[in-house]
């Protein structure tokens, strides 16, 4: 089932063409990475997918429903999410718990199942012992892990991750990739992840989409390198 479908997408920043004729899709159960040189508009592309930006031509759509015919839930980690305001008045537990609100908990109290999910998510990223710490007191790497715990606690159908492993050591990165692969292959989640380290993650992924500069373009304009799809 297609969770993301992008058709003939062209996007301009003001007058400058940035993305041209982009076509791809992400299915449920797939772990796909999106790469490209610095400034290749990778984040711009996923912001179009999310509806935060609007393409000049073409479409970028996320499925409304999941495999079980229920409302599809999206988990998004923006670039540098962990650099949020150091004074944000929240404990680690509160922040991770907020990931559960999507599960029809916006207006209801969290139940035991929710708290079990939160505990498991924090243990997955080795941050359970920090649950009562104030977010602002953590290091950059620890904040990043808390943000990852939040998305695992949310248990979304579709993960959209923009360089989520920034500040993580090699072992933590590989544990994280393994977990994403497990989510995709065992729980049929769709995963689109922007990364610079495609070699680092290559053994875990199903497909690799690369954005490349258009050879005939004088402008900063990128399209897809379909040859690089695995």
């Amino acid at each position, binding site marked *: 089932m297609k969770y993301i479908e992008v058709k003939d997408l062209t996007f301009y920043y003001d007058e400058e063409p940035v993305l041209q004729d982009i076509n791809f899709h992400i299915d449920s159960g797939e772990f796909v990475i999106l790469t490209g040189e610095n400034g290749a508009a990778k984040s711009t592309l996923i912001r179009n997918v999310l509806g935060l930006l609007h393409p000049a031509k073409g479409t970028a759509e996320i499925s409304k429903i999941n495999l079980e015919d229920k409302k599809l839930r999206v988990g998004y980690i923006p670039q540098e999410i962990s650099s949020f305001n150091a004074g944000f008045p*929240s404990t680690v537990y509160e922040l991770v718990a*907020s990931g559960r609100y999507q599960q029809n908990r916006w207006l209801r109290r969290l139940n035991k199942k929710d708290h079990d999910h939160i505990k498991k998510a924090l243990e997955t990223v080795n941050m359970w012992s920090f649950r009562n710490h104030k977010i602002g007191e953590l290091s950059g790497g620890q904040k990043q892990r808390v943000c990852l715990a939040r998305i695992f606690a949310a248990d979304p159908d579709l993960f959209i991750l923009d360089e989520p492993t920034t500040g993580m050591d090699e072992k933590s990165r590989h544990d994280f990739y393994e977990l994403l692969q497990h989510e995709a292959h065992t729980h049929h989640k769709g995963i689109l992840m922007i990364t610079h380290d495609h070699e680092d993650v290559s053994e875990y992924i199903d497909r690799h989409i690369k954005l490349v500069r258009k050879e005939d373009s004088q402008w900063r304009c990128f399209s897809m390198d379909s040859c690089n799809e695995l």
Partner: protein
Amino acid sequence: MEMFLYGFMQRALIASLLMAVITPLLGLFLVLRRQSLLADTLSHVSLAGVALGLFVNINPTITTLIVVLIASVLIEFLSNLYRTYSEVSIAIMMSAGLSIALVLMSLNQGASSMSVQQYLFGSIVTISTAQVIILAILTVLIVVLFLLFKKPMYVLTFDEETAFAEGLPVRWMSIVFNAVTGVTIAIMMPIAGALLVSAIMILPAAIAMRLGRSFNMVILVGVVVGVIGMVGGLMSSYQFNTPPGATITLLFIAIFIICSLIKVVSVRRQVNKQK
């Protein structure tokens, strides 16, 4: 305590307690969304609403509410237009509000300067029973809205793009939040004054953020700080015969300085202990 035997001081005390509940609930989100100046802007815009009411001879509270609601939508529209520099919308609306107020006041020579001064500087001790009732209704409304929408507002405050991806109507939430803040300011302005209402909105939340660890604790501390500042300031202004709004604001600033110093000392002690 004999001061509270007077009817006007009893009304002022009730108003203080009600405002102590309202201000941290809204103030915390204003501070976290980096919209501390929004309260100032809306108070300037409210002044235009007052001037309009006096100019067309309609109850200023009604015109103020209408003007503030329009301004709330405009601020959201402008901040989307200048997405990277969203504070531009605040600057534009603040100067527009004050300019319109000044022009309308100059055109309306017949209006009593007392009326304008009342809204500029406000006075909690001249509050009427009707104003206390309106403030009480507003407090109930805001507490109910807070309890209903605390979770979505938490996520929106944490990161707007994450909130959007998780299906929250980010734009509508911002407009409604601005509108509720605007209505609160319009109602509090004759009590606290256009010039000081934003300080009373922001300071309890800013102090609570230095003291509380969790989100809920910050809200609770904000209300306690609000009660201490509002009631303490009211009593001091009666005792020393100083303007109530200014006295309350100065007390909040004093609490802010003391809390900041205590925090710095305690952090240094902790660091020294770890060494």
